[in-house]
């Protein structure tokens, strides 16, 4: 089968996929474990869970979805998307924070 430069040599890639797989499993276990430990502050729990989730997400995106070696056009599109997504989320949160609290408790 003819091949194109986007995907090179596949046989050995399976190993990467398995490594990512195990990393994802470990990540899941660590997250759940941390949940049962109960840190003193909820912020630590949140930060840890989100940090692990981000790592897991990057693993999936980077290797399962081949984003680690994708074409420039895709990066450009996703770059804009990420910017607008963050804009939507952060500006909305900022707007909510910068609003006087409701009068009724």
């Amino acid at each position: 089968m003819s091949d194109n430069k986007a995907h090179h040599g596949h046989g050995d890639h399976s190993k990467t996929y398995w490594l990512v797989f195990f990393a994802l499993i470990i990540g899941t276990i660590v997250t759940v474990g941390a949940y049962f430990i109960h840190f003193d502050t909820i912020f630590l729990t949140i930060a840890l869970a989100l940090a692990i989730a981000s790592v897991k997400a990057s693993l999936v995106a980077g290797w399962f979805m081949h984003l680690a070696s994708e074409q420039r056009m895709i990066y450009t599109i996703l770059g804009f998307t990420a910017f607008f997504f963050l804009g939507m989320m952060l500006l909305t949160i900022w707007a909510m924070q910068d609003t006087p609290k409701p009068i009724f408790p």
Partner: protein
Amino acid sequence: MDIPYTVMPRRDTGLYNAKLGIWLFLASEVMLFGALFSSYILLRVGSYPGVWPHGLLNVPVGTVNTLVLICSSVTVVLGWAALKANQFAKYRKIQAITLACAGMFCCIKSYEYYDKFTHYEVILKDGRVIDGHLVEKVGGGQLVDGRRQPPEAIVIHGVEFPADAKAAGMAKVPLIHNLEKASGHHLEHKEFRIPWSDTKKVQNYGPWHNTYLAIYFTMTGLHALHVIGGALVIGWIWGPGAAMWKSDPERYTNRVEVSGLFWHFVDLVWIFLFPILYLL
């Protein structure tokens, strides 16, 4: 007429059409789920202190479902790699696991939904709250003037909170050990038979119950729709669509890749959904 670059990548972009198409689609999906995640944050941060419920969901079940989805993700990519290496039979086998995982995910999810829909909070007229799973509804249900009659009594297996507990915010924190810590005494699980006439409000833990459950059902429901849609497409390519492997193997491989990209995205969404809904 033929559209160029349906199979082979265009030189300057290095992409074939469908690959660009799916990434554009995923970009819009990022914005869709991004808006939902933003809503989640907003509603949660904006909620009054202490009312956001914790521990309503079954963490071990959720963990298993996470693992199921991770498995399906790795099989999707391995199946595609097998096709790339010209091993059609191997692809068929591996991708079958993906489909099985998808089915399993949906089953587990349905079980979780069922569990929530049979979980009731009964507020009595005297202010006591009984919280637990529905055992049975006794009598009632017949149609009178086109309206269904309420049952005579409702049997719940669960715990009882004293009348002032709700005011103290206890009933809003259903995790039992939290409650016990808060109230200082042991809450006993048992069966309650409550005459309908004693009840002020009977409501199950559906999306209408509180904002947390609302966002839980909406986000996981939308995610489940994606799982189902993705599984249908992957299943079609795997089954009836596989004839294309003979006529146009490269195009077929591309299809598997593109459907796989969608599947990974669905997995990726779950990676965030799981902690924010189950754990935090």
